[in-house]
């Protein structure tokens, strides 16, 4: 199963008038089990696009079909919202309950699961994000540190056990350790429960290291949609639309300018090391 996006266009309305379209004729498929990184300049339509994945914004033109559920049908939205988990920017701002446990259980409760299943899922989700249920369950989410609050909010989405997890800049405002923890969590989710990850990020390094596919949006259209090494081999085009390439690629480009012959497809430290160890350094 997969998410199929077919000729999706969208324009916001303001004061009864349609504005310039934010999304223009998007057409592609997100395969199950992928780690899709979405990059694009501010205002390129990234956030607008992900809001279509669980029906927060209506499909005006074109269709979004999640595992066979067409989001143009209003009745399908509820089903899809249980399938597609959504972690927004600064998700900690959505915390509202008196205790961490209660907040994390909000999603499963809305899914009308029985108490035992809810309890199981809440504890599982809390453990996944590294919050010990025995310690944190009864604490108020407003007494936690910034990183813990963010993880509580993510647990609240994970407790619904979504098949697809959409994250809009999940690492914004976190320290390096916090960033690594979130990325490790995403990798673990994908490997262990086969969860498809769709992540918007401004960190090309994180995208290069973790994504299996990269979607580049530019003014609401698909600019590139390919594997990270192929996307990041278009360094010049990316710079032109205000984006950049991972730091490893930058170093490679600089070295190539001085005579080295490093393939353009190298965009992670690992790939660089592998290439180096194969004895290509002197070639």
């Amino acid at each position, binding site marked *: 199963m997969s998410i199929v996006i077919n000729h999706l266009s969208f324009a916001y309305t*303001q*004061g*009864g008038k349609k504005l310039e379209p934010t999304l223009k004729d998007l057409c592609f498929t997100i395969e199950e089990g992928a780690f899709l990184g979405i990059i694009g300049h501010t205002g390129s339509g990234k956030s607008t696009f992900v*809001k279509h994945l*669980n029906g*927060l914004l209506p499909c005006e033109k074109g269709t979004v079909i999640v595992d066979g559920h067409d989001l143009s049908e209003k009745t399908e939205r*509820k089903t899809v*919202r*249980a399938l*597609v*988990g*959504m972690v*927004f920017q600064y*998700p900690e*701002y*959505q*915390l*509202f*309950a008196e205790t961490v446990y209660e907040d994390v259980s*909000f*999603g499963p409760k*809305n*899914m009308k699961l029985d108490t035992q299943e809810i309890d199981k899922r809440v504890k599982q989700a809390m453990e996944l994000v590294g919050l010990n249920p025995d310690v944190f369950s009864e604490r108020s989410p*407003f007494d936690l540190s910034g990183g813990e609050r963010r993880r509580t909010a993510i647990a*609240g*989405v994970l407790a*619904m056990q979504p098949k697809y997890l959409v994250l809009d800049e999940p690492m914004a405002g976190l320290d390096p350790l916090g960033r690594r923890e979130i990325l490790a969590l995403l990798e673990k989710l994908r490997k262990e429960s086969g969860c498809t990850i769709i992540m918007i990020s401004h960190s090309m390094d994180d995208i290069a290291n973790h994504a299996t596919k990269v979607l580049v949006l530019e003014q609401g259209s698909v600019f590139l949609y390919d594997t990270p090494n192929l996307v990041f081999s278009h360094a010049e085009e990316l710079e032109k639309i205000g984006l950049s390439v991972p730091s490893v690629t930058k170093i490679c480009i600089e070295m190539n300018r001085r005579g080295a012959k490093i393939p353009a497809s190298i965009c992670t430290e690992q790939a660089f090391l592998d290439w180096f160890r194969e004895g290509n350094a002197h070639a």
Partner: protein
Amino acid sequence: MRDITLGQYVAGDSVIHKLDPRTKIAMMILYIVMTFLVRQIWFMTIPLAYLIIELLLSRISLRYIFISLKPIRFLLILMFILNLFFTSGEHVWLDLGFWKLTGEAFLQSCFLSVRIVLLVAGASMLTLTTSPIALTDGIEKLLAPLKVIHFPAHELAMMMTIALRFVPTLMDESEKIRNAQMSRGADFESGNIVKRVKSMIPILIPLFVSSFRKADELATAMESRCYHGGDGRTRMHQLRFRKEDLFAILITLLFIAALVAILIWF
């Protein structure tokens, strides 16, 4: 949600727009007095004429006036009907036994409806032609004499400015939180009233928390830019009372004088 606009200012550079906000506030108060002086529906033509002149001068589309009247449409209808029922009179138009429709009741209903429409339209002329900032500046200046009795005029105006400035921010914020909770399966659209009110809690609490945080941040930002209240504070845009303002007030007073004369005469 997105389409709600508080402070419905329509930018422009007409004579009315350029008037001092204090003048416009005074004009509005005088206009309200005018509508309340009138006791018979036919004399409502005088405040109506005043309103039309102001509208023409301001070059604001009539559409905006209708928009401002939209929220009170149900109140208007209700009031119209209630007055038909509870006003007694002699000229019976229709007799249903338990209730008589009289000509007086009909006139009274029309009269009160016209008065309310004129009041709201006149008040919105003020907000349509005056930016919220200018308006609070004007209020501050008008209330300034009350500082003698320790009335916090500047603080009040500052609070109004800040409140107005944060309306769009909070709208945005509530939209975001709503989206997040909807993604977690929250349902705001179905169920009875108790259930619906309850379903607002996951939106309201984060909204309160974020307003407090924003207030705190704003206070810090203001203090670090040496804000210390109204004493000795100068303004970028000085309010100036000009010839045009005097003219506008005189015309308004003239209207009131004419109205009073007519009222005494008849």
